[in-house]
Structure formats: C-alpha cells, structure tokens
C-alpha cells in the first residue's frame, strides 16, 4: 500500500493564499519532488516541468446518483503522470476557489485505476481570516471546503484582532472538529504540517476527541447527544466552558459515535450502505474504525457522500482497546437515527 503516490488536495477560497502556499512548496528545499496540477497556470512562479494545467471537469457517474461525481480531468492527468512516476514523490492538486472538494476526493475512490496507484493524503484548506466569516454566510463552497479538510490554514491572521481569531477558529471547529487548524499570516507554516500528513490515516483522526470543545457539561460517549435537536438553529450559539467557544453551525454538523462491544458485519454493512444511499447528499465525509465479532483485524472505512471504501487494516494489537468508532460530517444529519442505527449493529 505504501507505494501509492500520496496526493494533497489544496482548496481555499479565491485570494486566501493557496498560490502562496503552492509557491512555497515548489521553491523551498525539502528533498521531495512534486507533480502539481493547477488551475490558474500563470500564477505559479516556478518553472517545473511537472506542473500541469487542468480545467476542472466535473463528471457525473452514470449510476443514477447525482452526488457521485468525479473530476474527469484528474482521471486523465493522473493516468498520464503515472507514466512518469519515477520523477516525483507526490502530487498536489490545486482546486479553484469555488470548487467542491467532493469530486476530487471521490475520484480516488471511484476510479480503481487511480485508486490502485495514488491515495489521498490530505485535503488542505486555506482560509482568509479577514473574509471567512462573510464567506461562511454567502458561499456554500467555503463551508464545504472546511467540512472536507484534514488541515486548515486560518491565514492572514495579521489582518484581524486576536479575539476575532479565536472566534473564527471556534466557528471552523463547529463545522469540522477533526481537522488540524493552524493560524498563519502568509501561509508561514512548516511544510511538514501540510504535506505527507497521511491524514486519511484514520488513527490520527479517531484519536481526536471532538468532545474536548464542548466543555464538561456534555456526555462524553456521544458528542452531540442531548443538546442539538431541541434548539432553535436560526442563529449560531455558543457554550462557554473548556476555554474555547463552541459554535454549532446551523446546517453543518459532525457526529462521533463509539461502541465498546463488537459489531456484526452482516448488520453493519447493510445499515451503512442504506444510510449513505439515503443520506449521501448530506453526508460530506465519514470515517470509521470498526471491531467485528470473531475478527482479529481492525476494519477501517471512509466515505464521501454515497461512496464508501473500506478494508481490513491490521490485526488488533495486544492490549488495544477494541472499540468501534465512526464519524460523520454533513448537513442536517439525522443524528438520533444514525445513532440508533449504529447501535443496532452490535453483534
């Protein structure tokens, strides 16, 4: 598996600083060679023979599912790049400011030919601290880009006040508590925080307890249990406690569930398939580590909208806590129903 070429997807609204970050990646000495797929060709100040201009072509899959889309240009370009695979160590895909990250991510799951040779390393989203608040209100793409991210740069922090920054960070966490957020001014961050993250390595993600933001007054088993459904969501609200404000985005939520007892795969797979078939358009991402009965290997899965991809990862280790955890990030998730469904998968 490790010989798959890692792919970093760089998203972010127009002017947030993607090109600054890209130019740093291409110019700084780090011993790695990158093939870069860009949209605005002229902005790259580096003469690199493996910079490829792409036109974003979103292709619907002909399977009756409107959220099953792939980036047709990526299918073609990555296939071509792979003919020169000895010449680079990793691929960076820059998307346009308005891009929905889903088709890019889905390309790696839907196209077996690409999935066999390349893997999504991380979705990195660059945001503009000065304008993020406004974009979250008027641009659904901006919210999608945050919801999808594994790493978020809250950039241009010199343009806003400190208290505004912590509010912005809390707002980001309200949408996506699993991403790693960095505050930067000119994307000044060690590149190791952005590249080769293996952020799709689920261990890292699952170790993050989203609960830590919610303060002591919340149930630690089920993050959003008991405080989400009775509320009026016309306005963002926050809970004091735990040092950081905790925002609930009015439409985008995350849900983290865990079960200590093993699951029955014959119950789990039909349930999760059915769930993503029905709720796929609203589920932006899901991930999980599962413990099945009579199975000494960890099963890991992840998904984008209706597409799920999973496999046995490795044997459970001696003394390791064999619990099952799943995480969903999406819009208007039917949290109670998902929770009840997951619990019904116990062996």
């Amino acid at each position: 598996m490790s010989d798959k070429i890692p792919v970093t997807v760089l998203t972010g609204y127009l002017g947030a600083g993607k090109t600054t970050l890209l130019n740093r990646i291409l110019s700084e000495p780090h011993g790695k060679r990158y093939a870069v797929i860009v949209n605005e060709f002229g902005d790259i100040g580096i003469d690199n023979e493996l910079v490829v201009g792409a036109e974003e072509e979103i292709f619907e899959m002909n399977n009756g599912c409107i959220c099953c889309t792939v980036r047709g240009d990526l299918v073609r370009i990555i296939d071509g790049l792979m003919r020169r695979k000895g010449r680079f160590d990793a691929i960076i895909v820059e998307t346009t400011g308005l891009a929905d990250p889903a088709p890019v991510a889905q390309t790696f799951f839907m196209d077996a030919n690409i999935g066999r040779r390349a893997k999504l390393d991380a979705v990195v989203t660059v945001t503009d601290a000065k304008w993020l608040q406004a974009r979250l209100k008027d641009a659904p793409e901006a919210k999608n880009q945050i919801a999808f991210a594994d790493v978020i740069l809250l950039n241009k922090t010199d343009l806003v006040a400190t208290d505004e920054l912590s509010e912005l960070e809390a707002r980001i966490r309200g949408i996506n508590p699993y991403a790693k957020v960095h505050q930067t001014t000119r994307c000044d961050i060690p590149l190791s925080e952005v590249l080769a993250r293996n952020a799709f390595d689920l261990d890292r993600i699952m170790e993050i307890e989203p609960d830590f933001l919610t303060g002591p007054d919340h149930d630690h088993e089920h993050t959003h249990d008991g405080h989400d459904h009775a509320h009026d969501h016309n306005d963002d609200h926050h809970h004091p406690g735990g040092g950081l404000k905790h925002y609930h985005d009015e439409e985008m939520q995350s849900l983290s569930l865990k079960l200590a007892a093993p699951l029955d795969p014959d119950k789990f797979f039909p349930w999760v398939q059915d769930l993503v078939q029905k709720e796929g358009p609203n589920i932006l991402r899901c991930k999980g580590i599962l413990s099945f009965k009579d199975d000494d290997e960890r099963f890991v899965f992840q998904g984008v909208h209706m597409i799920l991809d999973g496999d046995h990862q490795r044997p459970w280790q001696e003394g390791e806590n064999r619990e099952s955890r799943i995480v969903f990030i999406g819009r208007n998730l039917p949290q109670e129903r998902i929770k009840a469904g997951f619990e019904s998968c116990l062996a």
Partner: protein
Amino acid sequence: MTDSRGNIASLVERTALVSAAGTVVAAHFLGDTAILVLGEEALVLVSPDGQSRQVRIHGGAILASAADANRIITGGDDGRIVATALDGASAELGSDSKRRWIDHVATGPRQSVAWSAGRQATVRSPISEERVFEAPSTVGGLAFAPKGLRLAIAHYNGATLWFPGAQAAPETLAWKGSHLGVAFSPDGRFLVTTMQEPALHGWRLSDGQNLRMSGYGARVRSLDWSAGGKWLATSGAPQLVLWPFASKDGPMGKMPRMCAPAQAPAETVACHPKQEVVAVGYGDGLVLLVRIDDGAEILAREPSGAPVTALAWNSQGTRLAFGGEDGGAGIVNLG
C-alpha cells in the same frame, strides 16, 4: 499470486523475452518487427531475430500510440505528435501550439492521422487539409471509421461523428456519462465506447439505437474486435468477456460469452487477426490465448506478478508481443 492453469498447452518455450527499461504501455507491429511503446520517452524495436533497440522519440511521457502499415504514431506530454518508421527514424508530425498534452492519437485510411489535446481534435490527411474540431469537453478517445474519412470523438455525455473532409455538421450520439475509449466495429455498423463507469456503451449507427453493456467489476480499458467482427473482446473482469455482434441487433438483449476465468482481472485483450482467438493479459502477468468457440486455452506466459499492459499481434497472426507494467515483455513466435 499465481494462477495454476493445470496442464494446458504452452507456448512459453517459443517466447523471446525482452526486458524493457520501463512500463510498456502499448505494443504494435510493423511487419514482423514488434514495437513496444514505453511510458516515457522511447520505443523499443524488437526485430524478428530477437534483437532489440531503444529509440528516444519524446521528451516526456508517451500518452498515446497507434500504428498504420508503415509508421507508429505517438503523442506525448511534450505536446508533440511523432511518426516513427521501422528503421527507427522519427519525424515530428505536429505539435500543440500551447504545448498541451497530446492525449490521444488514431490512424485512419490513406495515412490519415488524428490527435487530440484537451477538447481539441485535429485531423491531418493527404486527401484533406488539416481540420480542427472543438469537442464539448475533453476528448476521451478517437477512432477512424473503417471506410472513408470519418472520425469518432468520445467525450462527456456522448460521442461525435465527424467528416473532417466534408462540410456536413458533425453528428452527436448522446448518452449520459463520461465516454473514454471509442471503437468502430470492423463493418462500421456499430460504435462502442468505454465509460468511466465499469460499462461499455454502443450505438447502432443506422438508427442510433443504444446498446448497454455492463456488469464489469472494473473500468474497461481494453477492447478489440475478433477476426470477422462477430465478437467484441473486453477487459474489466477476472475473465474474458465477449459481446456478440454478429446479428443485426448486436448484443441487444443478449448475454456476453465469458471464458478463461482467472484470479486476476483481464487487463489487456488483443484478437488474432485471422482466427477467432483472443490473447488476454491479466493483472498478475498471465497471458492466455483463448479460442472463442470452445474457450480452449493455451498458455503464452506464466504469471509474473506485474499487470500485462500491452498486447499486439502481427498482421499474419504468427507473432504475439506482450509487455507489462514492470517492463517485462516478450515476443511469442507461433509461426
């Protein structure tokens, strides 16, 4: 992973092995000389006596190749279209003014050549001036019709038939989805595309009737018509899948014939030019010759571990060239 075929007839001892310097992405024959197209920069010419030599023709990846009787046409990420002759001499046929990748090439009647870069397809022919067609999306594949100067261009949501030498408006065959490879049946009655989904789509050209061919486990990346055109052989499943095209309705309402099941998916297929026999290259390196009539198999190469990415017959059907992702290649001499 190995595939134990038991005691089937074998051609392994009649194979001259070639070790190419990189992934072999396609194979062709000029006469009895096999041409292995590498993923980067070069062709390997293997003469009938087994001598091989490498010629460098592109400054980067070779993205597409096709052959006519005298030349190998290649397109590269250096934006160039190159013609290489049997003696290894190459000439630039054209280049993209913006140095875009040349994604596809095709050869047609009377030395016609087509290529595409992004959405733009270009045809050059001795019987017509150079003509350019702008497809509605990136070109997924190109194929010349067996007769006349007519080009099929696959793209998103269908394929377009274009007479580059005539004023007639191009005709679009619509079908939702992303169409990648494209091929005419040898009698010109059908057009078939490979899709981004694990499926083929086809049209009967007389009336535009749609043909859907699905059920694959993976995207179909290789297809070829049997000698006589009665069958369409395809990759995309852990066996050879053959669609019947002999009747006027083609495969409409019919099941495909399936032969030569294996442990790895069929990656590449090439039909014998004279007999109803198909060479099939699998994901584990296995190469089999399969007789369509009864599914009888002959072993051409034991599994090597690396996917077979190229197969080609010479025009007499006496030599079969194969090449793999790991550069392992060979010429089987059946003569």
